C-alpha cells in the first residue's frame, strides 16, 4: 500500500470507519450521502480516486438502491461496504431483511441519528435499534478507535457466519469527534482478514439459483439456519477478538466489564454514553461507592448468557438508553429485563431514557442517576431523564 499510515493519527469516528473499510479491501462500495455519515463515503471516494483503494464506487439514486446493489455484489462474491444514517437506514429497511435472508455478509456503518419527524441531526440510537429483528449482527461503538477495530472485526465475523453486520456510532460524539486513533498497517489487516471467498456465489459459469419461492417447511428451515448462524457469532467474535488482541494489543470484548469488581450498582449502556459513564464510575469509586460499567458492544445477537454471568450478584442495575420505543420505553432496558428473567437473587433494574434526541448527559448527571436509582424502587417502565 502506498502512503502507509503513521501508527497514531488524528481521526474522526467517521474517518476511522473509512480507514477501517479501506484496510479491509472491499471490492464494491455502493454509497449515498446523508448527514452525519457523508464524511465516511467522501473519504472512501478520495482513497479510491487517489488509487489507494482498489474498489468499484457505485452511486445509486437512493439508500434502498444502495442496499440492492450491495446484496447483488455480495452474492457475486465481492466484499461490500457501505455507510448510512437515520432516514437512510430506514429507507434500506426492506432490503436489510433481504440481505440477511440471502446470507450476504455486507458490512454497513450506521451513524446513529434522530429519525424524522421532527427533523434533527442529533445522536439517538432508535434508527438502528428499530432494525433489531432484521437479522443483522449489530455492534455499538464508543470511540473512533472502537469504530476502526469493530469495522475490521465485523468483516471477519460476518463472513465467517454469512450474516451481514451493522456497526453503529453515535452522531457527533463519535462520528465527528477528532481524536487519536491507532491505525494498523495493511499487512497486519491482510493477515487478520483474508480475501472473501464464499462457498456459493452468483457465477454465470456455474449457475445456481437464489431467492426462490419456497414451501412453508423450507422457509422455516431457512429461518432456523439464520438463527444458528447468529448463535455462532459469540464463539467467532471471541476468537476474532483474541486474534486482534494478539496482533494489536487492543481488546474489544462483546461485553466489557469496567471496574465491576464487587460492584453493588452496575451501569449498563451502549455507544458514546459508555465513555462518559467511565468518568462517572471513576468519580463514584473515588467516593468509595461500589459502582461499575457494563458496556454492551454486541447487541445482536444479544449475549444473554454473558450478560447473566456478568450481572449475577449485582444489587442494582442502571440502564441508560439513548433511544426510545414509544409504547414500551428504552430498548436496552426492556431487552435486559428479558435477558435476566429468572436469574437467582434478581437485581433491581432501573431504566433511564437518558440523552434521547441528543440531550446532553454529563458524567456528573450519570453519577446523580446512580445515586437516585439506588435510593428508589425499580419501575417496570423506563423513566425519562430531564436534560
Amino acid at each position, binding site marked *: 500500500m502506498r502512503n502507509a499510515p503513521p501508527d497514531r493519527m*488524528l481521526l*474522526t469516528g467517521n474517518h476511522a470507519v473509512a480507514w477501517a473499510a479501506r484496510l479491509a479491501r472491499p471490492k464494491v462500495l455502493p454509497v449515498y450521502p446523508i*448527514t452525519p455519515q457523508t464524511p465516511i463515503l467522501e473519504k472512501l471516494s478520495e482513497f479510491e480516486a487517489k488509487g489507494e483503494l482498489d474498489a468499484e464506487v457505485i452511486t445509486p439514486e437512493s439508500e434502498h438502491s444502495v442496499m440492492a446493489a450491495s446484496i447483488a455484489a455480495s452474492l457475486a462474491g465481492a466484499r461490500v461496504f457501505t455507510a448510512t444514517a437515520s432516514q437512510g437506514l430506514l429507507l434500506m429497511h426492506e432490503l436489510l431483511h433481504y440481505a440477511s435472508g440471502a446470507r450476504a455478509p455486507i458490512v454497513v456503518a450506521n451513524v446513529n441519528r434522530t429519525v424524522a419527524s421532527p*427533523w434533527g*441531526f*442529533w445522536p439517538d440510537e432508535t434508527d438502528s435499534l428499530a432494525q433489531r429483528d432484521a437479522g443483522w449482527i449489530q455492534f455499538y461503538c*464508543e*470511540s473512533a478507535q472502537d469504530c476502526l477495530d469493530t469495522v475490521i472485526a465485523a468483516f471477519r465475523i460476518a463472513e465467517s457466519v454469512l450474516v451481514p453486520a451493522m456497526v453503529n456510532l*453515535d452522531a*457527533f*460524539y*463519535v462520528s*465527528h*469527534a*477528532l*481524536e*487519536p486513533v491507532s491505525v494498523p498497517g495493511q499487512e497486519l489487516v491482510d493477515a487478520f482478514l483474508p480475501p472473501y471467498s464464499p462457498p456459493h456465489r452468483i457465477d454465470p459459469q456455474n449457475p445456481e439459483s437464489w431467492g426462490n419461492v419456497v414451501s412453508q417447511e423450507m422457509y422455516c428451515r431457512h429461518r432456523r439456519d439464520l438463527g444458528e448462524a447468529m448463535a455462532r457469532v459469540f464463539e467467532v467474535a471471541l476468537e476474532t477478538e483474541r486474534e486482534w488482541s494478539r496482533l494489536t494489543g487492543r481488546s474489544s470484548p462483546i461485553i466489557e466489564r469496567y471496574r465491576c469488581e464487587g460492584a453493588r450498582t452496575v451501569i449498563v449502556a451502549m455507544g*458514546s*454514553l459508555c*465513555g*462518559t459513564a*467511565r*468518568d462517572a464510575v471513576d468519580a463514584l469509586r473515588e467516593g468509595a461507592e461500589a459502582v461499575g460499567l457494563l458496556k454492551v458492544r454486541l447487541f445482536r445477537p444479544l449475549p444473554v448468557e454473558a450478560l447473566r454471568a456478568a450481572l449475577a450478584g449485582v444489587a442494582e442495575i442502571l440502564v441508560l438508553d439513548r433511544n426510545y420505543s414509544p409504547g414500551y420505553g428504552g430498548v436496552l432496558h426492556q431487552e435486559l429485563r428479558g435477558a435476566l428473567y429468572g436469574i437467582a437473587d434478581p437485581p433491581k433494574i432501573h431504566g433511564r431514557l437518558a440523552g434521547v434526541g*441528543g440531550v*446532553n*448527559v*454529563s*458524567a456528573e448527571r450519570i453519577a446523580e442517576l446512580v445515586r437516585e436509582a439506588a435510593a428508589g424502587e425499580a419501575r417496570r417502565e423506563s423513566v425519562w431523564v430531564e436534560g
Partner: protein
Amino acid sequence: MLQIIIEGRGGQGAQTAGNLLASAFFAEGLEVQSFATYGGARRGTPVRSIIRIDDRPIRTRSDIERADAILCFDSSLLDARLLRAARPDTLIVVNSVREPGHFANALPGYRVVPVDGIGLARRHGLGRIVNSVLLGAFARALEAPPLAVLERAISDEAPALKEANAAACEEGYRTVDAQLKRGMA
C-alpha cells in the same frame, strides 16, 4: 483537563478552528478530543465546537457545561446563552472591533479579550475568513499551544493561501500580546 468552546456561525470556520487547535495540541504530545454540533448544517446558524485537552486519554462524550476558555467568532453570539457555559475566570476571546474597556463595562466579572478578526484577516488577503487570526489571538491569551506549533498546523491543513493564513495567525498572536502588555502597563 482543559475544556474549550469555539462558538461561531455556520460557514465561519469554527469547526475547522476546533480541529486545528486540537491538531496543534496533539502535535505537542497531548490527548485531544474535538467535535462540533450544529443546528442543521446551515450557513449562519450557531455552531459550537467542543475541544478537550488532557495528558491522559479523554473518554467523556458530552457537551462542555463550564468551559475554561471560549473563542467567540461573532460578538453577536456573546450573549446569555454562551455565558451560561462560562465561569468568572473563563477566558473569553471575541472577534470584535471594540476596545477591552467596552467589555469590562458590558460584561463585568468576565475576562474578555477582543480582537479585530476581520480587520486583520483582510490585511492578509483573507477577506472574512477569520479563523487563523482568531486562533493566533486565542493561543496568545491562553498561553498555549506555542505559536510555531499552531502555525504549522494551520499551514499543513489550509487548502490555499498557506502563508497568508500562517501570517494572519501570527498577527493575531502579536496583537493580543501587545494588548495584554498594554493592559499590564
